[in-house]
């Protein structure tokens, strides 16, 4: 097998895995999407208000919090996985909930992992909006919350960038989901906690490089589709 046959075989395999509706591959895609999607939503719900607070409001400790946010953006995913493991193990503080090696644990770990990234990028985007606009809105009679909303609208593009990079980091991450998810596949060949990235590790470990690369192509396609959809939606006419 020459080197280019390897690549063509992988591409062919990626499409045949998708077209034949292989339950293993599709359930793995489903777990990846569900875990990273929910982690993204939970993270946005916390990160965007927090970013607004850091961007618009002056309070003691703000500089420290900003430093922590930027530092957290470089946090390795295995460490996040390890910390969540220590929290959720039966011997840990939340052991009684029996959450280790479940999808919930994976969602928690990925939420924590992408929280600083979402906050940091959103914060920069919000700061780039001219504060005079907020003051203008205020002088026109807008209440403070309404004022924040007006400024958030103007930061929309930056918030979309935050969302996409957060999703990208979550779905491509392998260290945390491997540790807290346990990489479990049920014997009906249905993924319980295996994601595309951990599946790639398993295939590589077994020397099945073609399948591993095929799964990598599927992951690439998935992220591509999500980005296309999000960017298209973000570019829609802003008012009727």
């Amino acid at each position, binding site marked *: 097998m020459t080197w280019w046959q390897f690549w063509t075989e992988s591409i062919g395999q990626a499409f045949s895995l998708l077209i034949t509706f292989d339950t293993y591959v599709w359930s793995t895609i489903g777990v990846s*999407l569900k875990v990273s999607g*929910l982690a993204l*939503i939970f993270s946005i719900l916390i990160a965007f208000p927090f970013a607004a607070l850091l961007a618009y409001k002056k309070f003691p400790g703000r500089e420290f919090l900003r430093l922590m946010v930027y530092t957290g953006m470089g946090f390795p995913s295995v460490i996040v996985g390890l910390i969540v493991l220590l929290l959720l193990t039966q011997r840990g503080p939340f052991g009684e909930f*029996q959450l280790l090696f479940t999808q919930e644990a994976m969602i928690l770990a990925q939420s924590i992992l992408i929280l600083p990234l979402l906050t940091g990028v959103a914060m920069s985007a919000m700061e780039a909006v001219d504060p005079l606009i907020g003051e203008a809105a205020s002088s026109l009679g807008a209440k403070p919350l309404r004022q924040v909303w007006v400024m958030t*609208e103007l930061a929309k593009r930056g918030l979309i960038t935050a969302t996409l990079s957060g999703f990208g980091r979550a779905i491509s991450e392998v260290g945390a989901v491997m540790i807290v998810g346990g*990489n479990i596949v049920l*014997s009906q060949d249905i993924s319980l906690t295996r994601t595309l990235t951990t599946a790639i590790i398993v295939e590589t*470990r077994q*020397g099945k490089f073609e399948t591993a690369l095929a799964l990598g192509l599927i992951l690439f396609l998935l992220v591509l589709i999500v980005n296309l959809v999000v960017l298209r939606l*973000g570019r829609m006419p802003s008012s009727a």
Partner: protein
Amino acid sequence: MRKTMLPVFTVIFFALGWALFSLSNTTVSQIQPRTLTLATTTSTVDSGLLDRLNPVFEEKFNAQVHMLSLGTGAALRTAENGDADVVLVHARSAEDAFIEAGFGINRRDVMFNDFIVVGPSNDPANIHNLESASEAFTRIAQTQSLFVSRGDQSGTHQKEQVVWATANINPQGNWHLSVGQGMGNTLLQSSELGAYTISDRGTWLALKDRLNLEVLIEGPVKGGDLILLNPYGVIAVNPAHHSDRDYELAMAYIGFLTSIEAQQMIDDFRIDDEPLFFADALNEQPNFEQYVPQSR
């Protein structure tokens, strides 16, 4: 139409992921089986043996096996923390320590296979004519030939350490590379580097076509050095330590693995027509050493 589309696409996204997942998951959630979390090693999972055995157990006991494929050290630690119900591992001294510490009970022998020493065909340390693994290790150290070590406290790594100890060598120097990877990756790495390594036979058989390596020291399955024997044991997590674990189901699993049916399935298991595991749970004259730590 409102301006910000963020809520819209997050909802679409959420729905898509959920739909895909529930689509694939409906068949599972309808049955409501009991869950057995099995912490085991990459060699049993990657060979495909447990994919053969577990469905039979699941059918019999209306159970669902959640398999964690870790190294032996990590599997025992996971069980010690109470995050698994039962372990299937292969490092007798680590198993004994686990039992002596009170975390595991009711150990049974399940099966064995063996380790082999593999290396590049030009064999720079000239070990291929040797019978003894420890003598081979001595020559590798003397010639400072590259040796790739798992370095992850797995059963294979612990066996490697036993062989070094038998040879009275403390492997140090830039010829002994500790890679901290699973067996598959370690073999692939050895092949790329032209290095020696120690492997379980199962992973070797599954991967050998992709490797530029040869078997240089045989294990006891092929009449080689007895030190390379690789016995697997199954141990239940002690419910006195972890009352939340499903001890009953763990014992059912031990009962199943050591039953005539499962033992036969283990013996019948083949990769490329080669037997991989040799069942040894059942014997008319049982081996009492399987029940107690060997130090006693």
